């Protein structure tokens, strides 16, 4: 079970032949208290690098870009009533959606945990 990271602070984790997508701890920290998450519809097509979800905090709205192209299988319904799950557990209970990937080759271009940590250091 590997997790990969984008420079836009999304994470994508392989789970069997599916991929789970969410935003990183850094992203939720930057956004502040999250009050609303707009998720894609199940069966919707998502495109790598394009907006798939929107996360709204008390400060601002931020877009979540899909790390892979493919089809949404399911979304985290719990976020409708408890958007703060993204703050509390961004890489666990605060996941956004599960998807089937059209092409997994772009995963190789994403950062692993170590690479992402170095990337964050470079932002500081």
């Amino acid at each position, binding site marked *: 079970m590997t997790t990969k990271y984008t420079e836009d602070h999304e994470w994508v984790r392989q789970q069997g032949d599916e991929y789970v997508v969410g935003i990183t701890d850094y992203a939720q920290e*930057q*956004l*502040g*208290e999250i*009050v*609303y998450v*707009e998720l894609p519809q199940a069966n919707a097509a998502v495109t790598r690098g394009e907006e798939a979800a*929107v996360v*709204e905090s*008390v*400060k*601002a*709205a*931020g877009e979540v870009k899909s790390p892979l192209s493919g089809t949404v299988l399911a979304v985290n319904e719990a976020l*409708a009533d408890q*958007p703060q799950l993204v703050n509390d557990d961004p890489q666990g209970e605060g996941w956004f959606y599960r998807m089937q990937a059209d092409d997994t080759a772009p995963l190789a271009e994403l950062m692993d945990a170590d690479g992402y940590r170095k990337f964050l250091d470079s932002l500081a």
Partner: protein
Amino acid sequence: MSAPAPATLLRTPLHALHLQQRAKMVAFAGYEMPLHYAAGILAEHLHTRRCAGLFDVSHMGQISVRAHPRGSAADTDNDTARALESLIGADLLGLPHGRQKYALLTNSQGGIRDDLMIQNLGGRFMLVVNAAHKQQNFDYLQHHLGDTCQLELRHDLALLALQGPRAAAVLARLGCDLADMKFMDVRELEIDGLTCTLSRSGYSGEDGFEISLAAAHAESLARRLLADADSDAQVQLQLQLIGLGARDSLRLEAGLCLCGQDLTAATTPSEAALNWVISAARRHGGERAGGFPGAPVILPQIPRNIARVRVGLLPHGRAPVRPPAALLDAAGKPIGAVTSGGFSPTLGHPISMGYVQLAHAAPATEMVAVVRGKHVPLAVTKLPFVATQFFH
């Protein structure tokens, strides 16, 4: 997400305190200002509503105005008031020493240049203007009043806002008995040995005070207020520093306008639902009707002779509806736009303000906002969203 604050920004006298309190600093109106502290916007907002919060608003402009003396002190004050009335549609001759008024600077088309507080301090008037416009406003006032008045943009002063139901209790602990001070009263007094100008006002919708004092003493007073609250284990005053993020959500809940967003050079007082700000004495039939910029446009609009008006808007879902979302009627026809919007921590759901055509301005009128291409239903609602708690 906010950009990091560049090094060229101005700093307020409380800058070191903000950093020490782990503030997230952002650029605002040319200043490096705290957006929030460690607690975060939501907690800071709720703390202000439930207890008390201390805001650094030293970035705002404080402009003193005094007519060149001729005759008695009362004559000078009247001259100052008359001079200011040539630019402001408020009854300033009728503003007694020790009182302040919310007012508007208007342009010749009837639009709003800025909103401000005007205090009669006896011997001089003090204008508190928005940070973004302070130099511009000063130059404008100087240009029009410079011949008759002495004006000064007081860079030497800081401004702190102490807001919340426990605000008076925080000051009482420093020996200030302010029970006889009502909403919009202004008083010069000493707090902990420091000379301050205190007004019972603010922009959170709560009871509270704005404290003007020498910039050199601001940090010392802020630390004293905060420390005193901390040291008392029995009385849970717990005054906290509050950032600009919560200042914005507090004022929006209170239905108060943010200049540059809800008020612009293209909105008139009547459109902004601020008729009350234009004093009776300055309206048609008043003792000193008109005689301020834009009056020929502004005064005929007062009996709701307008095409659009500012209203409160309550989104039905959980999605915040932020500016500049377009507003459409049931048929999909554009009827206005959102000018402020966000999440209300007190109510636990989103709130917005915006301008709509008059036919759609009645409470409970349904419409939709266009948010990221989707239609979000909302309804007109009465302002404020959260009842104000001013000390009358």
